[in-house]
């Protein structure tokens, strides 16, 4: 039985009971408990099922390394799968449910896999699902997906809010144990800006649990005084519940702060992601205890010795009445002592070492605890709970000497420094043979932009395993980091009472000569069910790389990322390969250190502010008038404005016909507008455009094309000459920022001595296309300037006022109709737009959207960037040779277009298409031709680029590229259809409507 002790518990408040539920059963805990402690206090040792064999699993650890005790927390919008109970703080009303079992935790059908375990060896997935290929998709994957994944993905929208915070400091200390606190005291005293983060809810780490004595007093006294000193320093910021998740280049660190986990729905952000830039990082991340590999080491009740001690000391929870301690080191004796001091029974300490002479064992012996040296656990007995252990000699093969009944086992295989954050950005490790662990290699640190070390490991995380060592190491590390950041520091350390420990002995298998039957029950990775026998099998099958073995066996690939299993696993692998551990090496440590909530990574970016949506000044009007929007870059542009009873197609057709017969109004504000000014502006534009812009007279407009250096068509638009040295370049809606950047790139990097300035004025102006036979009438009604054919002919512009609005009016047309584009200041855009609608009512004014715009331009045979172009098209392909100057010595793209592939007469070129039956050619259709290519695919001779039903002509029209281009006029070709058929179409002139331009010439 695990239970709450009547006395003790340094972190709990016995006067504040908390009610919570586990699998629907109401339980009681205390304020200050972790969920793990509260569950143990309620004798809930069975907490889940393992992934592959569905074996019953209980708590192993007390921190983020916990592999077994992961649950689903909360419900609905606050449901979170895969939460470790060891890092979950208890609160009143908490709801938890176990995972990976069916139908119940106590009786689980999947446990049948356990009986079949000899048919599910390491590499099972690789071996089984290779063949037949189709079976993977239709048989294996669906089954695995249903049975796999420990937690279930939430189905409801996350009810919580999250945010980022950017922060800066000189010295960032990750870990608030005594080494981290000591480092902070030293760095803080130097005047450096210090940030100290601790993942748990308490400062001081394990020192109080271990009974350390600092400056002659219990560690807790020193910790409290250190925290007070630091809190009083203006240059030190401290945060609890904030985990350093990842270390990145140039001193960049991500940390996750838990804010409202225990107060769901209080309005505060649930988590906050800290994005920190620091000069130096101190990793004071502590160490994680390793399990020992003995048969049945996964049976609920077998726990890490340090964690057992933590539950007793911090939470006054005993994992069992009778606890057998099994160890290869002195530290585990502290657990035995703590248990006995708490009034519990320790029937035996099983120590694998032949000779045990240290101070701690002496103390244990003096307390009357039985110590068996040179011994091992042959096997743990029990199913859902430990009932006893059988002992054997460590040097042997497991012959049972004695059986001891107990209800818990506290194991310690030594401690591994938490080197994750040191390693994220390239820090290397060395193998410490004495302590049998990897620790940071100070001579190969992760380096910053200056090539110097940017991370300083301290305390347990640096292999300084005693309190005395850790404090000295912390002080030195804090000083080193502060000095590296440019401050003067003094590495003065608090003095801890020395508690000498005898050397440990590396024990990777217990007993060392265990046979296959025992090894098949020695768990390395609890969560993914990887055993000693699996790793040894992988080695026999030729897996020599630790990275390959990891993936083959799935060792360390579960949500705990092998925090307990990696070192034991690679030691077993090294042994099987007859290599030394450092030769085998570790797998790669990657961020995050422990799972970070996706919501925190998303930060504020969800809902309305998921991404910036650009809105024109008329956007609200569009919304009010039921616009159906489409994305154009980050803009949302109205695609069409459906009326009651209309579908989108009907609405678009109405908009086209009304524009062609009456008056259409389009919000063209998104059109890019870039001012180019200076003595060299004309020369500059002649280089950017394929045509000549320097010769454009003031007051006139000219259509221009821009190409990339390779010659491919990149953007198009109308250029207006404003004055002697000023031009205004219109770009496509999606191209404004890109073209502006393109201009600045050439001006800043290549032609830096040309006198040209640019300004992107896209958003300064609201622009309205006033289109159709009545366009002039509505502008004349608004009045204020002469927009007659004589004063303002096609391809000219004029400044003036319209209806009192300051306006620049361009006589340009993308529809073939009489058309003006009117630019007014954006802050008056909506008012002008409404004035136009009011004035235009009598002329049949009607708003139209981008789809009507597209159809009308296609009826006129005008190309559209992104439809007729895709980055592989040159202007010549689109019969736009007329817009390319033959006289200019150079322009961007000229050289590219001269390359033989682009100059080839065989290139597909633009033509118009009309189906023989009047139907609409499908988007993306190809024109097949005879024969097959080298890859056995059917040959093609062209494809459609724009295809619409023309409401004006009442038939399908299309533009496309075809080998031979306009030379094929009159040919009948076949376009593919999505269902495998073909549709016949005639090659025609792409100008379907008003070929002579009479509509516009009025």
């Amino acid at each position, binding site marked *: 039985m695990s239970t709450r002790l009547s006395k003790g518990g340094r972190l709990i408040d016995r006067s504040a009971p908390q009610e919570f539920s586990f699998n629907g059963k109401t339980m009681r805990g205390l304020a200050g408990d972790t969920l793990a402690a509260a569950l143990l206090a309620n004798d809930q040792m069975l907490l889940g099922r393992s992934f592959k064999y569905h074996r019953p699993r209980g708590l192993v650890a007390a921190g983020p390394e916990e592999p077994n005790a992961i649950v689903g927390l909360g419900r609905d919008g606050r449901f979170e799968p895969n939460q470790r109970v060891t890092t979950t703080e208890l609160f009143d009303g908490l709801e938890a449910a176990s995972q990976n079992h069916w139908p119940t935790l106590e009786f689980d059908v999947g446990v049948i896999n356990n009986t079949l375990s000899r048919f599910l060896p390491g590499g099972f997935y690789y071996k089984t699902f290779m063949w037949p290929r189709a079976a993977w998709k239709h048989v294996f994957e669906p089954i695995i997906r249903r049975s796999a994944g420990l937690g279930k993905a939430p189905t409801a929208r996350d009810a919580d*809010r999250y945010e980022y915070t950017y922060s800066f400091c000189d010295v960032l200390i990750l870990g608030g144990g005594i080494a981290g606190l000591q480092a902070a005291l030293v760095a803080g005293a130097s005047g450096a800006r210090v940030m100290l983060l601790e993942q748990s809810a308490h400062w001081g780490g394990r020192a109080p649990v271990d009974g350390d004595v600092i400056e002659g007093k219990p560690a807790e006294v020193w910790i409290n005084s250190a925290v007070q000193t630091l809190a009083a320093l203006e240059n030190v910021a401290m945060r609890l519940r904030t985990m350093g998740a990842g270390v990145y280049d140039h001193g960049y660190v991500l940390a996750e702060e838990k804010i409202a986990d225990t107060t769901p729905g209080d309005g505060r952000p649930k988590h906050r992601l800290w994005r920190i830039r620091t000069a130096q990082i101190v990793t004071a991340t502590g160490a994680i205890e390793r399990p020992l590999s003995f048969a049945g080491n996964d049976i609920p009740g077998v726990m890490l010795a340090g964690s057992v001690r933590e539950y007793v000391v911090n939470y006054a929870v005993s994992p069992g009445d009778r606890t057998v301690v099994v160890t290869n080191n002195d530290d585990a004796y502290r657990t035995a002592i703590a248990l006995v001091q708490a009034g519990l029974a320790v029937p035996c300490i099983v120590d694998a070492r032949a000779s045990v002479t240290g101070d701690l064992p002496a103390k244990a012996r003096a307390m009357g605890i039985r110590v068996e040296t040179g011994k091992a656990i042959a096997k743990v007995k029990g199913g859902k709970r430990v009932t006893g252990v059988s002992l054997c000699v460590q040097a042997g093969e497991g012959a049972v000497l004695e059986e001891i009944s107990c209800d818990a086992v506290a194991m310690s295989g030594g401690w591994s420094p938490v080197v994750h954050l040191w390693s994220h950005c390239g820090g290397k490790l060395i193998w410490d043979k004495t302590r049998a662990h990897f620790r940071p290699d100070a001579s190969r640190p992760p380096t910053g932009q200056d090539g110097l070390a940017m991370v300083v490991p301290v305390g347990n995380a640096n292999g300084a395993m005693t309190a005395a060592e850790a404090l000295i190491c912390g002080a030195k590390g804090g000083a080193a980091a502060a000095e590296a950041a440019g401050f003067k520091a003094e590495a003065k350390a608090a003095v801890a009472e020395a508690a000498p420990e005898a050397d440990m002995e590396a024990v990777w298998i217990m007993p060392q000569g265990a046979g296959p039957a025992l090894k098949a029950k020695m768990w390395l990775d609890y969560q993914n069910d990887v055993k000693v026998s699996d790793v040894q099998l992988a080695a026999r099958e030729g897996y020599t790389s630790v990275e390959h073995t990891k993936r083959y066996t799935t060792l360390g690939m579960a949500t705990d990322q092998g925090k307990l299993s990696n070192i034991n696993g690679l030691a077993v692998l090294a042994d099987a390969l007859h290599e030394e551990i450092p030769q085998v090496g570790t797998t790669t440590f990657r961020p995050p250190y422990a799972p970070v909530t996706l919501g925190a990574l998303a930060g*504020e970016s969800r809902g309305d502010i998921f991404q910036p949506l650009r809105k024109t000044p008329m956007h609200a009007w569009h919304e009010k008038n039921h616009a159906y929007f489409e994305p154009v870059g980050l803009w949302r542009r109205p695609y069409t404005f459906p009326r009651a009873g209309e579908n989108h197609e009907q609405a678009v057709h109405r908009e086209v016909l009304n524009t062609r017969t009456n008056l259409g109004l389009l919000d063209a504000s998104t059109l890019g507008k870039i001012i180019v000014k200076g003595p060299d502006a004309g020369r500059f534009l002649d280089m950017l455009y394929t045509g000549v812009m320097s010769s454009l007279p003031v007051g006139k407009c000219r259509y221009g094309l821009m190409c990339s250096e390779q010659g491919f068509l990149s953007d198009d638009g109308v250029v207006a000459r404003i004055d002697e040295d000023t031009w205004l370049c219109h770009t496509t809606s999606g191209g404004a920022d890109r073209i502006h950047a393109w201009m600045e790139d050439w001006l800043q990097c290549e032609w830096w001595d040309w006198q040209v300035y640019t300004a992107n004025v896209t958003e300064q102006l609201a622009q309205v296309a006033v289109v159709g036979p009545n366009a002039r009438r509505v502008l004349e009604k608004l009045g204020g300037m002469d927009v007659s054919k004589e004063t303002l002919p096609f391809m000219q512009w004029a400044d003036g006022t319209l209806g009192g609005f300051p306006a620049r009016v361009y006589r340009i047309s993308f529809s073939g109709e009489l058309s003006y584009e009117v630019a007014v200041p954006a802050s008056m855009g909506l008012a002008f737009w409404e004035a136009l609608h009011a004035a235009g009512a009598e002329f049949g004014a009607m708003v139209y959207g981008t789809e009507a715009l597209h159809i009308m331009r296609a009826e006129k045979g005008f190309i559209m960037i992104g439809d007729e172009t895709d980055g592989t098209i040159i202007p010549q392909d689109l019969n736009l040779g007329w817009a390319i100057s033959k006289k200019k010595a150079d322009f961007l793209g000229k050289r590219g277009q001269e390359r033989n592939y682009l100059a080839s007469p065989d290139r597909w070129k633009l033509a118009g298409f009309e189906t023989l039956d009047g139907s609409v050619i499908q988007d993306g259709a190809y024109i097949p031709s005879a024969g097959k290519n080298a890859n056995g695919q059917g040959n093609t001779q062209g494809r459609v680029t724009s295809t619409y039903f023309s409401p004006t002509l009442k038939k399908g029209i299309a533009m496309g590229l075809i080998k031979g281009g306009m030379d094929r006029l009159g040919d009948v070709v076949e376009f593919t259809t999505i269902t495998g058929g073909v549709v016949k179409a005639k090659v025609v002139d792409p100008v379907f409507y008003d070929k002579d331009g009479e509509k516009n010439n009025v």
Partner: protein
Amino acid sequence: MSNAVSALGHASFDGFAKVREIGPIGMISLRAKADLPGLAAAIKAAVGTGVPAQRQIEIAGDKAAGWMSPDEYLLLLPYGETDAALAAIAEALRGQHHLAVTLSDARAVFRIEGAKADQVLAKLSPVDFATLGSKELRRTRAAQVAAAFWKDGDGYTLVCFRSVAAYVMGLLSHSATSGSEIS
């Protein structure tokens, strides 16, 4: 003639700091090299301040001049005074290569006020507020869009593009929500 209206009609939000959309404010983008003869006179004539040093903003009452890049300045002034300022600049820089253009309507302007106003911005912009100068014009980003801000009185003035005004208002409101104070 219609009145100029700001992008959000002076939307505001009260959290642990106060967020207000203000404006429209007159803005001129002046592009000129720092050593251009007449530059100091042009800025003086337009907004009455000196030429701002690198990353600085010179504020004089309701007018200001900010350094945007080695050859770009942002001039701030009352909305209706941009034409006169442009004329003054043209006069002072006659014959000198420069570009001055009104961008008042291309921008949205926000005020973030209160003792913890910096915490609102620290959630959105990678800016070190401890080292931000009292006269610094900080060009940065607010989450996913370009922004610039400076300290003015008991808060900050933030400028962004007009088309993303609603997005930025959403960001600032989210960040200023009561209970989400960083410290």
